[in-house]
């Protein structure tokens, strides 16, 4: 029963392309939302459960993407091996940075992660001989899954959704495990958690590495799906968008992050039609949601639904039709 919501979600994901075959908003936007979900769910582990803000998460996303892009195009590595190498490198770097960065608190942590993100972005732009510079790298070969070449938008929808469901399932289990409980203790009061014998530094490092790994994983998929990477897909704006997804959906709720990621992806697609007014509306919406639903859309809307249900129940008895 614990995973009922998950199965429902998986069913929806599988049914959508059957109900709306060859539909851009399902296949292409859906795949893009799927990648965002992987990123947001990972970031939510760090922000929602461990209470550590990160304004540089796009850097890990970019490292995964560029690892795959560079290793496959310049060195001819098989795509799965490149993906694994990307995960390994990103994980190692995250582990190295975790201790000094996570010692910081609040806005200082925000600054440090932001700075980290900017530095990685500058390197992607400047190290032209490796990264192709601001114009990026093109010609990334198709993802090869043990002989199956993933090509075409429908196949990508399948692969990204499968990856996304795997990540969500892993996360749901992780949150319920001992690590998850340690994390929540850290979020509540780090000092108290230490008193209770939780190795808070270790717990924070673990979750930092895990969320970096999720991001790098999404990055590798992204690179193969687009067959092209450029630094602007991994800049500060993207980091801020990811934080927005997590907060918009509702912190410390995996499905909140899922909701936030999907909502923001759809919002971006929807707002395009407003052209010059897009920015204005985007900003106003962000402010409004955060002011009126500081707990996020998922919690905010489900509370509202509960209130309505409550009121309906009290009014009683509704005529049966």
């Amino acid at each position: 029963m614990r995973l009922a919501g998950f199965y429902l979600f998986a069913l929806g994901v599988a049914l959508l392309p059957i109900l709306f075959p060859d539909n851009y908003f399902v296949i292409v936007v859906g795949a893009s939302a799927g990648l965002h979900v992987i990123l947001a769910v990972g970031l939510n582990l760090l922000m929602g459960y461990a209470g550590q803000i990160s304004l540089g998460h796009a850097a890990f996303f970019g490292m995964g993407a560029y690892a795959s892009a560079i290793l496959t195009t310049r060195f001819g590595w098989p795509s799965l091996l490149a993906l694994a190498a990307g995960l390994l490198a990103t994980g190692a770097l995250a582990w190295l940075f975790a201790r000094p960065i996570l010692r910081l608190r609040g806005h200082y942590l925000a600054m440090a992660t932001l700075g980290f993100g900017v530095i990685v972005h500058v390197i992607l732009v400047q190290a032209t001989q490796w990264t192709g510079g601001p114009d990026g790298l093109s010609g990334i070969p198709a993802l090869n899954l043990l002989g199956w070449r993933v090509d075409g938008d429908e196949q990508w929808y399948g692969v990204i959704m499968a990856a996304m469901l795997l990540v969500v399932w892993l996360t749901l289990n992780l949150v319920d495990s001992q690590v998850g409980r340690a994390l929540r203790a850290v979020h509540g009061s780090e000092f108290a958690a230490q008193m209770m014998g939780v190795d808070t530094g270790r717990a924070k490092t673990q979750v930092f590495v895990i969320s970096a790994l999720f991001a790098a994983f999404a990055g590798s998929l992204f690179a193969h799906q687009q067959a092209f990477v450029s630094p602007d897909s991994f800049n500060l704006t993207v980091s801020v968008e990811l934080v927005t997804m997590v907060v918009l959906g509702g912190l410390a709720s995996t499905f909140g992050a899922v909701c936030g990621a999907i909502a923001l992806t759809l919002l971006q697609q929807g707002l395009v039609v407003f052209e010059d007014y897009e920015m204005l509306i985007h900003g106003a919406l962000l402010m409004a949601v955060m002011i009126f639903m500081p707990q996020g859309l998922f919690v905010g809307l489900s509370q509202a639904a509960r209130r309505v249900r409550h009121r309906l129940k009290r009014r009683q008895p509704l005529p049966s039709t």
Partner: protein
Amino acid sequence: MPELLLQFLVTGITVGSLYALVGLGFALIYNASDVVNFAQGEFVMLGAMTAIALLNAGMPLLLAAIIATSLTVLVGLLLERFAIEPAAGASVVTTIIITIGAAIFLRGVALLLWGKDFHALPPFSGEAPIRLGGATVLPQSLWVLGVTVALVLLVRVFLNRTLLGKALLACSFNRTAAQAVGINVKAMLRLAYGLSAGLGALAGILIAPITFSSYEAGVMLGLKGFSAAIVGGIGNPMGAVAGGLLLGVLEALGAGLVSSGYKDAIAFLFVLMVLFFEPTGLFGHKAAERV
């Protein structure tokens, strides 16, 4: 070589003054409300763009500057009233998203009002460079420097010598206690936002003849101002000023001596290093964590 170094220093101090003013705005607002206002850079942009628009409409520069600053102060007050006050008590991340939302919103307004073009303000007193040893300085740089020093001194005197300023500082240390001794915390909050917006607008007007302005000009400045405030220890106004100057000089030296492409990376690497060794900035007070 010494001539080059002098030139880098001149450049660094000019740019650094700007960062200092923006950083000062961050610090004042943080002091009063524990909020890092990511729309601070947009105040800079609004000040510059409004002044340019008024000037183009035929207004004399001084009047345009005064009106532009007042309008930006008004925007700051509105932001406080309608976006920050209703979200009182929200978490750090929530307020960050709110102010980022406000920044995007203000950018959107500027886009609709003034389009996407870059606009310039004419320099206040000519463009003939002044020789300074082996280096050259623009008269406008002297304006930037002079006004920044004046503003920083004014803010310092205000905070340390006047009752209102002391009340503002008191809020930053302990809001409940401040309330208890009869300080109108809400009014202090508005004061901080108005003051920060005004400082930002002035910075924008000062720098517009050198760097031009457009609806997006506030983004990078906001970031650098935030870095300045953090390096100085957030909530320490004079620390933010020192942080801004330090960052500006470092960037200029980095661009001149190491690599211009990696200039931003060098600046942020410096910020990271500071934080790794001094987790609360160079001049931050080390507050005990509440359990």
